[in-house]
């Protein structure tokens, strides 16, 4: 994606900037300039105002990605979800900081600011929203790898000489 194209989308990607119809109250993301919900679309003309989503919502549906898109190799397997925001619009986004097994339909999530991708090692870095579970997850052993072995289970060649 070109630098300029991504830059034009920063209000949406950084701040969940959508729009709202002051005629019927429907919120949109990405923003619309005409409201398709109003019986006569004309009624909404010039009544659409900028509106920022809170980022709160719940998982409407999700998939677990095992074959990553370019730039996501380090995060496999990762969860891509449809998130129904409290304001109404449904957003597509990655659910991070949770193992795929912990993600379920109805899981309460909140938008978080993350790195989306990099244009190689020398290129620009793109940032935007992803989602993270709201509930307090207790301290846990890692879901992304085998549990850390106790010292007694470590093969002797890996250990410091006694």
């Amino acid at each position, binding site marked *: 994606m070109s630098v300029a194209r991504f830059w034009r989308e*920063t209000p949406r990607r*950084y*701040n969940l900037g959508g729009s709202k119809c002051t005629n019927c109250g429907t919120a949109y993301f990405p923003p619309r300039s005409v409201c398709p919900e109003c019986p006569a679309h004309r009624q909404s003309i010039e009544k659409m105002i900028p509106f*920022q989503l809170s980022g709160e919502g719940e998982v409407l549906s999700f998939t677990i990605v095992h074959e990553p898109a370019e730039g996501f*190799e*380090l*995060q496999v397997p990762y969860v891509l979800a449809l998130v129904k925001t409290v304001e109404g619009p449904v957003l597509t986004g990655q659910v*991070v*900081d949770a193992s795929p097994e912990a993600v379920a339909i109805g899981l309460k999530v909140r938008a*978080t*600011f*993350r*790195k*989306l991708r990099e244009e*190689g090692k020398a290129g620009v*870095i793109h*940032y935007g929203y*992803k989602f993270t579970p709201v509930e*307090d*997850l*207790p*301290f*846990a*052993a*890692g*879901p*992304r*790898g*085998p*549990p*850390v*072995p106790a*010292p007694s289970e*470590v093969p002797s060649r*890996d*250990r*410091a000489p006694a």
Partner: protein
Amino acid sequence: MKAGIVSYGVYVPRYRITPGEIGRVWGSDGESMGEGLNVRRKSVPAPDEDTITISTEALRTALLRGAIDPQQIGAVYVGSESHPYAVKPTATVVAQAVGATPFLTAADFEFACKAGTAAIQTCLGLVGSEMIRYGVAIGTDTSQGAPGDALEYSASAGGAAFVMGSERVICQVARTLSYTTDTPDFWRREGQKYPSHGGRFTGEPAYFRHVTECARRMMEVQGTGPKDYAHVVFHQPNGKFPQRVGKQLGFSEAQMRYGLVTPDIGNTYSAAALIGLANVLDRAKPRERILMVGYGSGAGSDAFDLETTDEIAAYDRSFGRPVQWYLDSGTEIPYAVYAKFRGKIHMGGS
């Protein structure tokens, strides 16, 4: 001084690794290393986290807690030694992501581990002189130690954002002063991935000298002694140094208790003292005096004589997570996953 802390927020990435696990890979006794450093585990950023994302999360929490209109922010300064870009400010992305742009000044600071406290001093000047209404000072890092190096057992990631202002101040800054010399104890040259350090030289002539001289001068100027402070917070490159320097200066374990967070999350560099201060403020009642002394290699110390105000009783901490949550929670990962997350594995390609 009229200016003080109006609000604050902290963010620490979710993943953790233990010194025992690091030592297992390098054939050394990591558990003893951890005990020696007083570090039980350290935080590890996910592959999609960096200084910009951590700063943004911390600042968003601070703005929501303080109910601060981002358009009233006149300055955003981000102190770090791990800015994602060599040229292009971290602060502009953070300012845009919290809705503070475009009428404000922004810049990145670097002074090893004390860039965050230097940013607080700058904001105090701007707020105190009424050039701006609110100034944001952030200390964040995702620093790394070279694989197998002693630093690898403690270098972690985290960030703290402080909103400085002169209205609804929850913690007054009575005075700040610094102690600065040219001391080459720790450095990283342009283009180098990992820092270099002077080993034991980072101790006595560097950390201990600067922190004690700065703290003593502060107490001398303010006419105070260790007993006048309810809490004390030091820069904490590990869990041992701050305990030792605190004892040297005459502070008790109880005074140091809440300001010490490194044992549970590791050394967050520019954020280390600031997360310690946030932990104190999470618990502080009105009219408690706090001494904070930051330290940055290269080298310098910034001391702050602080006192909570009556406003802190009404301060809404309900949004965002308290520091204690970050100390207690996390997801432990093995070294291989840590190496993958931190870019220590060569992936091939250009």
